[in-house]
């Protein structure tokens, strides 16, 4: 045995019947959010009932969105309980409200580094981390030139 032990790997998503289109879109560097076929309301994460219209058969369709949003909160991670993220420390996580719908919120990494200037309402847009050749994970970057 030579060399240092391998770094633990990041956990990867396991797409299921409902979420497969989300991860397919992410692999193509597109953000697609589930939308109720009955009333058109976005839902993240999708589930068996649409919270807006109450249908138990929402037939969610993943619809490409702009990927633009505003920061509602953030944290700078100096430790992670997921060993696969240790090599990335410190990293920033942002709670983002997408422009498409009030309170439609996604949490992702902010790829601008731990010292990025952040405030409530900072404008961000989606970016993608290519974690493996097949898997890309949605993240965010600050929108250059935007007032925050």
């Amino acid at each position: 045995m030579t060399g240092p032990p391998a770094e633990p790997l990041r956990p990867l998503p396991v797409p299921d019947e409902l979420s497969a289109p989300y991860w397919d879109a992410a692999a193509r560097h597109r953000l697609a959010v589930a939308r109720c076929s009955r009333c058109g309301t976005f839902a993240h994460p999708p589930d068996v009932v649409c919270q807006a219209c109450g249908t138990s058969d929402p037939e969610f369709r993943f619809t490409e969105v702009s990927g633009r949003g505003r920061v509602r909160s953030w944290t700078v991670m100096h430790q992670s309980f997921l060993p696969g993220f240790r090599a990335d420390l410190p990293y920033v996580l942002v709670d983002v409200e997408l422009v498409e719908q009030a309170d439609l919120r996604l949490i992702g990494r902010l790829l601008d580094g731990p010292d990025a200037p952040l405030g409530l309402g900072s404008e961000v847009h989606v970016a993608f981390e290519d974690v493996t050749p097949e898997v890309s994970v949605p993240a965010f970057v600050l929108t250059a030139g935007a007032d925050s």
Partner: protein
Amino acid sequence: MSGTMAARNKVVIAGYAHSQVERHSDQQLGSMAVDTARRAIADAGLDAVDGFVTGALFPTSGSHAAEDGISLVTANWLAEHLGINPRYAAGFQGFGQIPGSVTMAVNAVASGAADYVLLHRALHNPKGKYHENTMRDARGSQQWTVPQGYFGPLAMIALPYQEYIQRYGATREAMAQVLVEARKNGARLPWSHWYGQPLTAEEYLAAPFISDPICRYDCDIPVDGVAAFVFTTAERAKDLPNQPVYVSGFGMGAPVTRRTPVHWPLDDIMGVGEETARRLWESSGIGPGDVDLPQVYDGFSPFVYFWLECLGLCPKGEAHRFVLDGQIDSDRPGAIPALSSGGALGNGRMHGVPQMLECYLQLSGRAGERQRQGVNVGVACHSSPHFGGAVVYTNTPTRR
């Protein structure tokens, strides 16, 4: 639909016991639970009980096995190991392990399902890292957050706390006073993990961030510990040795807005928390001004602000100033002793037990050197205001 508690003041706590709280006990958790249960039953002046209730949740996100008698203790397990065939044994599954379990104990006693119900809570600190999780595959709901690096309770509480800081201008110096207060009170409790170990503001301010703005002192420390309380009717308690403490109201609630796992925006916490408080006042027939002893939950320090505001003990957005002004200093006349129990931050991760225990000890006149005068109404909070609840206790039920 009436929100009034139908069994208000009909069921009481008649006795209790509490183990030592230790980082890692030499004794197996189930063994500690048996000893503590026996002491509680004896303390209530009884030889046995015929009902058992607990919320057995093992609150970790780590890769640990949940094993009855070792990492958690269910009601069935405890009854069996006390050699009792109970008339009633049940575990709470829902939001707010302590208020939820108290509700079940009260219901069992009020309905006659059992005459004497032992409610216990057993908490375990496993070997190894408490929250670390080596999962490689993020399935189901985890796929929406884990591949992104969002996982575990520290990031969970960091987001709403950051929102609070940004919105209301809260300083780290203010939160230091929450820790100073919790650890001051915890240092006075012989059973506490932090007995004799207060914390200074300087120590708090020097601690590095783990999940900015959260540092390690903002989190309760995992421990081994067990508490047990005996419930019965007010009528039967007349023949028992201790001053009874009456259960006078409940408030619980949970959000309906769908979120990705452990995503707790500040507005969710405060919106549901304010409704929980409204239910508490309606259930008990009292208001915030009637409470002598509010005991806020503090498993993570920002919950102290959130509960103070939800309960209406200070204006929304003002809790950080309220704390900084010494308004929760338990030694200051006229202040609100919201952490006189030491809380989870001053005891260890006893998950809502310190708040309940402090209400019981002070209202039954059994707090010893720490006994406060003129305390008749207490409120014990548990968990986040939007994912838990609170219970009103009193020692003078005839006033209402």
